[in-house]
């Protein structure tokens, strides 16, 4: 076996929350503390003094290796240290401890369209963005046609990108990044943008990049389905530490077991969307208790409250239901059975109900809003959870049948 392309040893990143100047960023405060207590300012805070342990380790004691050609997913809750890890791997910020050894050219894609300028044309932005991502002028020129074709923006190549639809913008931005030629590609969450067809195209492009070109990819995502589909291995981070390093299915199951339900510190985890509309509350109809309990075929009703800005246009709500292993078992879109919602004011309510088809177990619910062209306005992940008890709604006991869902068929003879 060849030597690992990425070696991470005992890696740590510490942010200091201590000095007031680091918080307020004003010279006044730094000078002030220097004048008030010059000796201490020079020596640093006395051990045990208030504030001495306000160092925050975003990543700590992390070690792993990656072999060439591997696609490694990194999952973890917000604040688990995923982004900090990627920033250290892509040289944006320095480690505070430990060491990273990279044996290959690295390109990182932490944001789609970094450096895009709205007043420049598509063509101009391709060159600019390519250069920012580390391509030379010659490389970009050689791949220009490919990039344009991939983004499907041939006709608008000389239009300023501020006139692009958000979908075109994202496609163009991703197309540039997808045509980078590094040995190691670091990607953060970027597949959460764009329409479904384009997402599939991106996934296919990434898969061919690893399969045919032997590239190594590190991939952070909240989208567990794409981790499952794309990765050969997944790392789970929690509070800056590695808690699992396994095949995707196993790692995802571990991750799911770590998840608390509902709101975190009073806020949902919004994993996509541009803020034009937001779900503020997601409620289940079952009264009381930490986790609602339903029988099989019992009616479930979700109620969502939302706020919306005037420019959001028509809304389409969706609901995703996950099993405890992180696999999405069902998805429902408002347009399956209804029409768009055109909100009358800045707030609104919508509800959705169905007869619970799930067999006994625990389930998680994500919900979100699309705009008319299926761009995400919001997506709250695992905002609610519920359990299904071992019985049918008509009182019969559950009979350990196979499968994950039940249906209400009509038998005839």
């Amino acid at each position, binding site marked *: 076996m060849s030597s690992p392309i990425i070696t991470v040893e005992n890696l740590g990143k510490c942010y200091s929350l201590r000095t007031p*100047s680091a918080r307020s960023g004003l010279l006044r405060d730094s000078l002030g503390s220097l004048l008030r207590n010059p000796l201490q300012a020079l020596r640093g805070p006395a051990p045990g003094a208030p504030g001495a342990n306000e160092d925050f380790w975003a990543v700590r004691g992390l070690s792993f290796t990656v072999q*060439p*050609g591997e696609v490694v997913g990194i999952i973890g809750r917000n604040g688990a240290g995923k982004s900090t890890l990627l920033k250290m791997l892509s040289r944006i*910020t320095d480690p505070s401890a430990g060491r*990273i*050894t990279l044996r*290959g050219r690295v390109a990182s894609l932490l944001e789609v369209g970094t450096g895009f300028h709205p*007043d420049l044309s598509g063509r101009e932005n391709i060159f600019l963005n390519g250069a920012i991502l580390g391509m030379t002028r010659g490389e970009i020129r050689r791949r220009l046609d490919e990039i344009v074709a991939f983004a499907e923006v041939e006709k608008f190549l000389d239009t300023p990108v501020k006139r692009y639809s958000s979908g075109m913008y994202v496609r163009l931005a991703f197309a540039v990044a997808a045509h980078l030629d590094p040995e190691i590609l670091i990607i953060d969450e970027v597949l959460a943008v764009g329409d479904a067809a384009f997402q599939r195209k991106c996934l296919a492009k990434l898969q061919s990049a690893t399969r045919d070109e032997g590239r190594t990819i590190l991939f952070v995502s909240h989208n567990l389905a794409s981790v499952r589909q794309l990765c050969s291995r997944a790392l789970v981070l929690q509070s800056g530490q590695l808690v699992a390093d396994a095949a995707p299915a196993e790692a995802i199951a571990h991750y799911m077991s770590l998840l608390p339900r509902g709101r975190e510190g009073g806020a949902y985890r919004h994993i996509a969307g541009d803020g034009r509309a937001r779900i503020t509350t997601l409620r289940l109809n079952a009264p009381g208790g930490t986790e609602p309990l339903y029988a099989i075929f019992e009616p479930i009703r979700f109620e969502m409250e939302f706020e919306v800005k005037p420019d959001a246009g028509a809304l389409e709500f969706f609901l995703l239901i996950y099993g405890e292993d992180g696999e999405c078992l069902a998805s429902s879109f408002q347009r399956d059975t209804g029409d768009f919602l055109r909100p009358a004011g800045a707030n609104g309510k919508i509800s959705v109900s169905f007869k619970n088809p799930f067999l006994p177990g625990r389930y998680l619910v994500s919900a979100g809003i699309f705009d008319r062209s299926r761009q995400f306005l919001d997506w709250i992940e695992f905002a609610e959870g519920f359990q299904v008890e071992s019985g049918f709604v008509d009182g019969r006991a559950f009979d350990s049948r196979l499968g994950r869902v039940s249906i209400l068929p009509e038998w005839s003879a």
Partner: protein
Amino acid sequence: MPPPPIDTTEAPPLILEAGRASRNYWRDLWRYRDLLAFLTWRDLVVRYKQTMVGVAWALLQPLLTMAVFVVFGGLLGVPTDGVPRPVMVFAALLPWQFFSAALSACSGSLVNSSNLISKVYFPRLIVPLSAILVSLVDFLVSAVFLAALMLWYGLAPDWRILALPLYTLLAFACALGAGLWLTALMVRYRDFRIVLPFILQFGTYVSPVAFNSNLVPEKWFLLYSLNPMVSVIDGFRWSLLRGSQSLNPVGLAMSTALAVLLLWSGTAYFRKTERSFADVI
């Protein structure tokens, strides 16, 4: 198709560690030269796309400043040593405007590019460098205007003009040196945003833009020459106006030394702090 083997032994591995400076810093900077060109080009293109008057902005500001200095200089009877006042003033405004525009663009450059800095790696020195290059383009536009002005007055420079690029380089070094200090400090201490206009305004008065260095009394001359732009401006007048302004070798040596010191210390401070920019910006 089997994946082509990747030869991982070919290039030396890149090692990232706390406090370890990149060994290939200057080579990296060279590798990213296209980015420098693109960022400069972006700023120019965007400015001219967004403004109505476009290129004229590079001229309008020095022109109006020149008008003010010419009118008040005339009213106050500031001597010009036989050079037409507009030429005398503009020959000084040209490097001064370049310096002040370059310094202020350079100082704000990192904070204004915070979105890039927190999302992509590249040698950070590119950002202030490209800001200065944009000012250099404006400088060239103004230089064309000065040439026209001199042609109008029938003034032709002599062999001394060959020294002009060197004085421009000196101004460039001063602006970059001071700019590197300020832009790195501004990432951490936003107060410098307020300090900068004051420095620049003060500089306009203590630099020989509206007047001639000959007016400065002997006993103040050393103190006066601590401002490195004095030598640059005197040098511009010397090389453009057939030596109508005398050269002061002591002042020039001091300015050059100061510029080198600024550039060296600015680069050192910048490099020392650059690895934490993404954390504090």
